[in-house]
């Protein structure tokens, strides 16, 4: 029983990370209709920046804040400068672009900081919550940060005018323009937010899996799985999906197929969801009257 609880706790923790990644993916998907394959590498790169800052002596939370801000700006920059010229390009060109970004970030990180793994500090003390070795403060902290972030974003999108403008721009760019919304900037904002969320995900996971340029590749795949399971057009769904995938991954890994086929498991989830229920568990089917 203890083992089971531990697995659930571990699953929720990884699930929180996947939820963050999924959230970033959904953000970009909802605002631009694109899937950002470079999401993981961007997050990883931001985490390295944080590491460099901490290494240079900055306190953790200062580095954290700065990194999130830089990531936000970076995301904005990428959308405005790199992607905007291609905005009417066909799907393939954009996919190629994302893959290119993926490669560049991965290689840059390796170039600047090498491929040897590094330690990344955690803001949470390494204690147990209940004193029985089952759940740690760290795990709880990760889940808490994720939920807080989700709450903030939900409020932003549902109750603020800017959030509404972003949603409108994502759904129908032409109509949004006809309401005076500067659609390009909304897209850029979406990217900025996604990059910031990714950076947070990276900084949450780095203490657990150690920092290295290939840290996020596998996690990205789980993020995809989570986003698809929950519904790629739906932020709350994506987060729920992330948690579900996290817990399932741990349970299946421990009890069924062993830890060696985890990525294959993710692959099966991805394909399965895409085939059986592409809108995901919480995805809404939008009714359109012609």
């Amino acid at each position, binding site marked *: 029983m203890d083992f089971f609880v531990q697995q659930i706790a571990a699953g929720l923790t990884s699930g929180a990370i996947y939820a963050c990644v999924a959230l970033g993916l959904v953000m970009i998907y909802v605002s631009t*209709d*694109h*899937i950002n*394959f470079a999401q993981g590498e961007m997050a990883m790169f931001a985490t390295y920046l944080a590491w460099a800052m901490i290494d240079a002596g900055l306190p953790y939370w200062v580095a954290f804040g700065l990194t999130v801000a830089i990531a936000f700006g970076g995301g904005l920059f990428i959308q405005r400068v*790199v992607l905007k*010229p*291609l905005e009417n*390009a*066909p*799907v*393939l*060109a954009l*996919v*190629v*672009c994302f*893959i*290119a*970004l*993926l*490669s*560049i970030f*991965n*290689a*840059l990180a*390796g*170039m*600047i*900081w*090498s*491929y040897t793994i590094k330690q990344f500090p955690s803001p949470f003390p390494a204690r147990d919550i209940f004193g029985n070795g089952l759940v740690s403060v760290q795990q709880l902290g990760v889940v808490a940060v994720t939920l807080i972030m989700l709450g903030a974003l939900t409020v932003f999108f549902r109750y603020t005018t800017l959030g509404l403008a972003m949603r409108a721009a994502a759904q129908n760019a032409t109509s949004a323009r006809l309401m005076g919304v500067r659609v390009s900037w909304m897209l850029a904002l979406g990217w900025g937010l996604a990059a910031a969320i990714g950076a947070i995900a990276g900084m949450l996971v780095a203490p657990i899996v150690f920092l290295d340029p290939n840290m996020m*590749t*596998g996690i990205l*795949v789980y993020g*995809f*799985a989570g986003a698809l399971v929950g519904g790629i057009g739906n932020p709350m769904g994506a987060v729920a999906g992330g948690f579900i995938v996290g817990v399932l991954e741990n349970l299946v890994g421990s009890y069924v197929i062993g830890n*060696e*086929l*985890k*990525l*294959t498991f*993710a*692959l099966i989830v*991805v*394909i399965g969801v*895409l*085939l059986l229920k*592409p809108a995901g568990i919480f995805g809404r089917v939008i009714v359109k009257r012609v």
Partner: protein
Amino acid sequence: MAAIVNGWAMKKGFGLVAIIFWIVLALLPMVGLITEDPSFEYYMFMGQSMLIYAIAVLGLNLLIGFNGQISLGHSAFFALGAYTAAILMTFGGWPFWATLPVAGAVCFGAGFLFGFPALKLEGHYLALATFTLAIAVPQLLKYKPIAPWTGGVGGVLLDKPEPPEWLGLSVDQYLYYLCLIVAILMFWLVFNLLRSRSGLAMMAIRDHAMAAGTMGVDTALYKTVTFGISAGITGVAGGLSAITIAYVAPDSFTLQLAISFLVGLVVGGLASLPGCLIGGAFIVLVQNSAQSISDWMKTTFALRYDVPAWAIYGVLLLLLMYVMPTGVMGGITALRQKISGRRTTRVNAPSSTVVRPGKTAGETTPAA
């Protein structure tokens, strides 16, 4: 429909260039008779790699350039072909040349099966599914229960085939001819496929799937079969790589490999057969010069660590998307169109045949 009638099918002159080209390639090893250069054998090996990548890119091109689907996971089929060949040679004692058709067939089957779920996916989603495939494969290859066959993490070491005495060729020259013959076969196959009614159907699906369907084309069947053929061709390339490198290991078949195929395809030019050869050559050249580029960058920019080949791929891909999205062949055809275009005002002018991928990764935009 205009876009369906591809330029190269109409150009007879092109056929002659192709024949001359292949003949030149066949004569290259003969240079070895004249030269004393010790690295000649290495150039032969490079030639093998270029041809192998060209074949792999050909497979991918069939799927993306001519049928409008997408795949970021062809490294999986390449791996499957390589391991099939390796296992047949090691455990079955099969002669190397016999493993290639099997590798092709197995990969055709795998691709065909993957084609079914792929039917429901378009654009980004299919990219996503194949991306996940590419990432899952190396881990899958290391799976302990199948290690007795796959050699686990360490992979499988093979013996390079020895050429028969009476040919008087070195090992690398022999293998070069093997790759060349297979390449000619593959290109000839695809060339004929594309000129057949099936080929027209494939391209019709790329250009406008719904219209093709209403004209009686069984879209689902064609798409799955094309996926299969595409995977099969890349699988044959994989088998060749197992033979020529004489080693297969899981970490040779990562996402990076799939990305390099994509780079080759984009550089050469989508929906262009000669482009595949350019792409294949390009990939090998970049891999080989990666170290020198890295050294140069280290000194110029005072970097501490090596620049991996894949950074170069990334930057190139990005630049290409802005500057030359139709690749080298697209650039050449556009140039030719410019020179001769004033005299012809055909809508299906050559530049429209070197396809710009459309919204569903394959429509052509009619030339102005």
